[in-house]
């Protein structure tokens, strides 16, 4: 056990955890930030995706020890009132069914758009295809992705 101070959604937290404990479980079990989901724990599904310094990362694959002094953003930090353009697009299209995978879907897109505001179709496909949705909302995710890209590029 060790003590770590981490920044999540612009707030500082100190957590006591095993250095190897994945960020996913720190967020969920210790900090009660349950918007970040457990889907597989082995890098197969993307449900656990968060932003670390703006890049999409799978929180089940990152040990807490390596999170110190990093800026972590979870779905709760996108916005609390649906004002982030990605949330807005998801709302407008009405993407979710069960909704369980959707925080990961939005976060992975956020990471992509942070890097590249005008990704090619191929780049989008590559990134989005790594995040699974059992309910099969892909048709709507695709619409929402394009809407979000449009929105982000029109406001800037």
């Amino acid at each position, binding site marked *: *056990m060790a003590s770590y101070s981490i920044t999540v959604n612009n707030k500082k937290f100190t957590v006591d955890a095993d250095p190897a404990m994945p960020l996913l479980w720190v967020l969920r079990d*210790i900090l*009660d930030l349950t*918007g970040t989901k457990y889907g597989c724990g082995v890098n197969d599904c993307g449900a656990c995706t968060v932003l670390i310094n703006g890049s999409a990362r799978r929180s089940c694959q990152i040990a807490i020890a390596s999170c110190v002094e990093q800026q972590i953003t979870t*779905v709760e930090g996108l916005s609390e009132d649906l004002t982030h353009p990605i949330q807005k697009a998801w709302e407008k299209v009405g993407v979710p069914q069960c*909704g369980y995978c959707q925080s990961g879907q939005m976060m992975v897109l956020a990471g992509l758009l942070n890097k590249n505001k005008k990704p090619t179709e191929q780049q989008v496909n590559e990134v989005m295809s790594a995040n699974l949705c*059992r*309910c099969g909302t892909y*048709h709507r995710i695709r619409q929402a992705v394009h809407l979000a890209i449009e929105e982000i590029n029109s406001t800037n």
Partner: protein
Amino acid sequence: MKIVSVDRRQFIKVTSLSGAGLMIGILLPGIKSFAQNTPDCEFFQPNAFLRIDKKGDVTIFVARQEMGQGVNTSLPIIVADEMDADWKKVKVEIAPYGTLPEGSHDTGGSQSILLDYTQLRKAGAIAKAMLIAAAAAKWKIKPEQCAADNGSVVNTINMLTIPYAELVCEAAALPVPAEVSLKSPKDFKLIGKEQKKSNLKDILTGKAKYGIDIKIPGMVYASVERCPVLGGKLISVDDTEAKKVAGFIKLVTYEGTGSPMQVRPGVAVVATNYWSAMEARKLLKIKWDEGSKNKESTEQLFKNFEARATSAPAFEKYKKGDISKLKITSLNSIISNYSAPFLAHATMEPINFIAEVKGDKCELWGGLQLPDWTVGEIIKQFGFKKENIKVNLALIGGGFGRRLHFEFAIETINIAKQLDKPVKMICDRTDDIRFDNFRPANYHRMQASWDTNGKLQSWDHHLQTTSIAITHDPATKDPSENLGGAMEDFYYDVPNVHTGYTHQDFNITRGWLRSVEICVNVFPIECFVDEVALKLKKDPYQFRLSMLEGREMFKVGEGPGAMKQYPQRIADVLKLAAEKIGYDQPRMKNHFIGLATHSFIFAKSYAAHAIEIEILAPKKFRIKRVVAAIDCGLVINPDGLRNQMEGGIAFALQQALKGEITIQNSRVAEDGFSTYELLTYEEMPPVEIYTINSTEEPGGVGEVGLPTVAPALCNALAAAGYRPRTLPIRKEGFQWVV
């Protein structure tokens, strides 16, 4: 209050075989448990389904479990429309377990809207009638001189209005009317209009709490090692190393139990957090006695199916005419065998559950599609008194029938019993896949013959599966799984029909998965009818229509549980799908279209798919377009309907292309999403959903979008010169590109 009681076993049968038709008849549930006139008039709650508070907020309580299928929106729409509520003021909550008659929370078989439509309308109408009566008294006019509109009562004489919020106190003091009249459908304001999911905002901000997100004060976490072979026993466990993991609290073991829900013996590591529990579990040294049924494989099972296929079925399901009197030769008939594997639910939210046992009391938290049956079994197995079991139902991150089964609840109680704290058991993804209740593997021998005019004269279907019913009740008298056209519901007009069923024993737990046997049977039926058409050099579309159009409705089954088969509605969805994909239009080079149609008989809905593919190289193709047509009667929420149909296509394409659970040495080989692959974003083809405009009673939609996808795809491949007969088709060497 009168409740039509339904025997639990009957419900199982009903769910798996004939829909919950018998469940209809539950009258509007109790009122008396609700204080009608609270001293400070905080709210007005005339029944268990709704409450209006002083601010005018309307809370609608949804009894059916939300798991992505949208009942948390469609059911409130029904209530809100009938009470003329302002939709913007509607809040939706899970109806607390225990406030409604038995069966009210059961969620399966695409039955929610079907079962609840009328009683939810009544619930809303009662509230409206009481609010109107309260307003009429205030205005000193007759109730008939009032109307309701968008959250207010209107005085039709002077057109003054009073918002519902201001009538809460008076309405609550009134008697609940025994009879109310319902709106004429032409006056619907919300039904039929697009509404977004009622918990959309919570989902998109990370606030939606699924079962796995619930935290109870003092709660600990469990990760469970289960016996790899069903029917085995624990010999020993050594936790010396596991104990050293920080956060380790305790090791707990429990024995396996049998039907209805097969619980494997388990060794649970309990820890202060889930990750520690998983880490410690890896360090356990366990010896299992696997029992004698530890050598079974799906490879052998399919050989057994094949060997048994030509003998008479163990159960005769349906006989019309007499095939034995016909002259059937190799010249006027064909025989084909179709098969599909075991399948897992693989919900995104891995199976999890929370239980706390304190003396003779037990409290539970989590998603359950059949909570009453679960509670009944818990009583039997653990001896709690019914009133000492508290159930807190939770939002479900993907159901598809997985939580109709509840072995995980029994497991969690087995653990909680040995602790003095609430415990959350979570399956890791490997557990979730390996210890699922799998949709049965199945095998079909189909034979059809025709007369000299090329008209079908006989149809023979021998279905074999590893029965679900036998998993739940080994003594069941009829374990057959023939709905979907493999019994008297066979929808094509053929003079001589014979269908039968055979169960093959297999040591793995089976269960219901979205569309269950309708998916299982529509695949071979819709492929084989296509196959016969091509053999006869007939157009498969016209060939189907010739055996559907104009055919009268016929009943399937007898008595109050009888279902109705409408061949014309099956034809109509097919026609819509064919028209929308441009079936009669010239095709581009190397483009082929396949069709399939069916009725989801116990959900009273009908759907067809048309799929266009492009062949790129031998056995290599791209899906260009998927068109779905559905007739589910009156549509409650078109947005929810489309979402289900779109998702159904993804779900069914996974099964058609790549979904397969294989068993070796009585163990599931697949261990996660890398081996049990789901459809991906880029694999999702362009889809279009079309709806038949209908005023028929509303039917279910959750499962209706699946069964015709795989056959439509296989029929497109057949149009290109292939005829896949094994799912998933990659087993036959097909490749697809995006």
